[in-house]
């Protein structure tokens, strides 16, 4: 797909600005893709959601999460909502969830917030590629002043059986002014294909979105995801990422603070195991004054696992009084574990507070010995220290039931990673 072809499909987008719009996927020569690239992407076949039946009644292995009746649930299999497995909010709630349609796209253009605009402005090659395929997905719309009475959980199950098949999705989330929502996602599946998802999220004036993504990909699966967020003034956006696995995963989070007094909180916990490569990139765009952001990422890397973290903070000349914080820590479980972490700060305003820090290392032998000398076995000691490393981040998960589920998942994952290490 060329530039021109993309423009024909999205005529309303005008001139796409960017260097990303090349004819070929970026390779290792591109700084952002140095550690993670997909050289064979052009040979991938597209699997469009519409190719699957709308009414897939085959029983799904939806993970049992004790969320109770106090949650709205949307089950999405291979890009298609499964109404019989979902508990959708009723229309009176002020929250609507449905599949993105051509009509929505048309309507969005009239409303002045066209779908695809964020992706074309800040999306990377793969996001723009997905847009060009007319990828569809969910449209979540929260009306003005609506405070969601329950958290919303989206369970995404992608079973793309064949390698080199890609399922592109495009999700849109809109929070109208002064509304609020807790949106949690559990993403998992089987097979060997690639999930390619673009999220366009608009958080209106004074609105508050808590967005939690738990990626539980199998170690045969690939994923490219870009979450693009535009925040209006006085809004809050919190993103929590838990990435427990995947063959090759590239998550990009691009947040633009388009109005004053916005706050952004980005938290991530990454646990790659053997032959798994999990890459998280953030771009925090401070383009308005008096905003703040706080990024905390931790990677616990198992035997022959790889974690990549690249955290960019851009502070525009106009963004005076910005308060930006970023920290990344990695704990390597074995000599063969790899962590590539790089903070990138581009600061063009002078009256700002920006701090960042990064640590990487293995468990401290002195700590392990101290614990053993009190009666714990080596593995007990290691697990306790590793759990302490992740627990504090998990506290940022705002839904209690999800938090304890996630902690259990994490502890099981740590057991697996330690078993492989021995």
């Amino acid at each position, binding site marked *: 797909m060329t530039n021109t072809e993309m423009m024909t499909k999205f005529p309303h987008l005008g001139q796409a600005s960017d260097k990303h719009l090349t004819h070929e996927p970026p390779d290792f020569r591109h700084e952002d893709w140095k550690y993670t690239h997909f050289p064979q992407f052009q040979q991938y076949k597209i699997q469009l959601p519409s190719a699957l039946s709308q009414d897939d009644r085959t029983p799904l292995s939806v993970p049992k999460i004790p969320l109770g009746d106090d949650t709205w649930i949307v089950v999405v299999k291979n890009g298609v909502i499964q109404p019989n497995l979902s508990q959708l909010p009723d229309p009176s709630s002020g929250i609507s969830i449905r599949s993105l349609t051509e009509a929505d796209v048309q309507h969005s253009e009239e409303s002045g917030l066209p779908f695809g605009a964020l992706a074309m402005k800040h999306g990377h090659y793969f996001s723009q590629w997905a847009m060009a395929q007319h990828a569809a997905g969910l449209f979540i719309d929260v009306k003005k002043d609506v405070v969601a009475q329950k958290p919303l959980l989206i369970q995404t199950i992608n079973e793309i059986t064949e390698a080199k098949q890609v399922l592109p999705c495009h999700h849109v989330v809109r929070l109208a002014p002064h509304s609020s929502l807790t949106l949690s996602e559990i993403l998992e599946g089987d097979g060997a294909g690639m999930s390619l998802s673009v999220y366009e999220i608009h958080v209106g004036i004074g609105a508050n979105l808590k967005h939690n993504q738990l990626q539980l990909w199998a170690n045969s699966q690939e994923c490219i995801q870009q979450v693009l967020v535009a925040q209006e003034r006085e809004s809050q956006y919190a993103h929590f990422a838990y990435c427990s696995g995947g063959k090759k995963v590239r998550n990009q989070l691009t947040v633009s603070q388009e109005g004053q007094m916005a706050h952004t909180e980005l938290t991530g916990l990454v646990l790659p195991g053997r032959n798994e490569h999990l890459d998280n990139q953030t771009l925090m765009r401070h383009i308005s004054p008096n905003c703040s952001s706080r990024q905390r990422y931790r990677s616990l890397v198992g035997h022959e696992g790889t974690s990549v973290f690249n955290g960019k903070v851009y502070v525009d000349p106009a963004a005076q009084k910005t308060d930006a914080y970023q920290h990344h820590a990695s704990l390597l479980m074995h000599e063969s574990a790899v962590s590539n972490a790089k903070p990138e700060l581009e600061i063009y305003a002078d009256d700002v507070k920006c701090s960042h820090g990064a640590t990487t290392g293995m468990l401290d032998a002195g700590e392990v*010995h*101290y614990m*053993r*000398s*009190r*009666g714990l076995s080596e593995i007990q000691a290691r697990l*306790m220290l590793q759990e*302490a490393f992740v*627990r504090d981040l998990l506290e940022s998960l705002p839904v209690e039931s999800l938090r304890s589920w996630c902690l259990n998942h994490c502890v099981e994952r740590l057991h697996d990673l330690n078993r492989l290490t021995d």
Partner: protein
Amino acid sequence: MLLEIENLRASIEGKEILKGINLNIPSGEVHAIMGPNGSGKSTLSSIIAGKDGYDISGSIRLDGQEILDWEPEIRSRAGIFLAFQYPVELPGVGLSSFLRACVNERRKYLGEPELDASAFLALMREKAAMVELSQELIRRPVNQGFSGGEKKRNEIFQMAMLEPRMAILDETDSGLDIDALRIVAEGVNKLRHAQRSMLVITHYQRLLEYIIPDRVHVLMDGAIVMSGDRTLALTLEEKGYDWIRAEQEVSS
């Protein structure tokens, strides 16, 4: 004999640090080891507790059983406890969940049932009060943000929780002011028991005014050069280690 150390030699990177130590501690007795800096006191206590990295020969027996090839956690479960000279901070590891795991490992080893949460909590309250460790500290991660004195009291608290057979206190008095020293010493004295022995390592005589030892040994340059009753500590305080060196030269 509760602890028997026989001709213990230890070297690290080719450097001999312990040069043939013989030491017997009967059940219920408190022995003190005094010696100048660098004489090998911490090395001796680390080796009893199972720290690796040394070339070791000789023998260490607990209740008649050779323990030199036991892992540190097995020694701990069997009743050896070392209060570290420099207690380690465990970032994010809560003191009470850590200790609960430790106590239950020791109980399992002894064939006793594990303590449930409420029984454990009650035990913890009781023992913490003994060394005046506040409930606030107990809720924190192990030693994180503790002052020097609090770390030392935390070591004695953990000792009280684990009820060891053989407790080794490596310079638990160093860095303590006089009030903290008294609290620690009183805690230790409450733990004296006919079935428990202690090895108190110190640099100064002061601690031994509070914890009265049955025997005092002087360790110099990796060997025990003199042993005696508690008055030896006083003589040593008065005359200094040079006196021992002079005595040794006379006898050799």
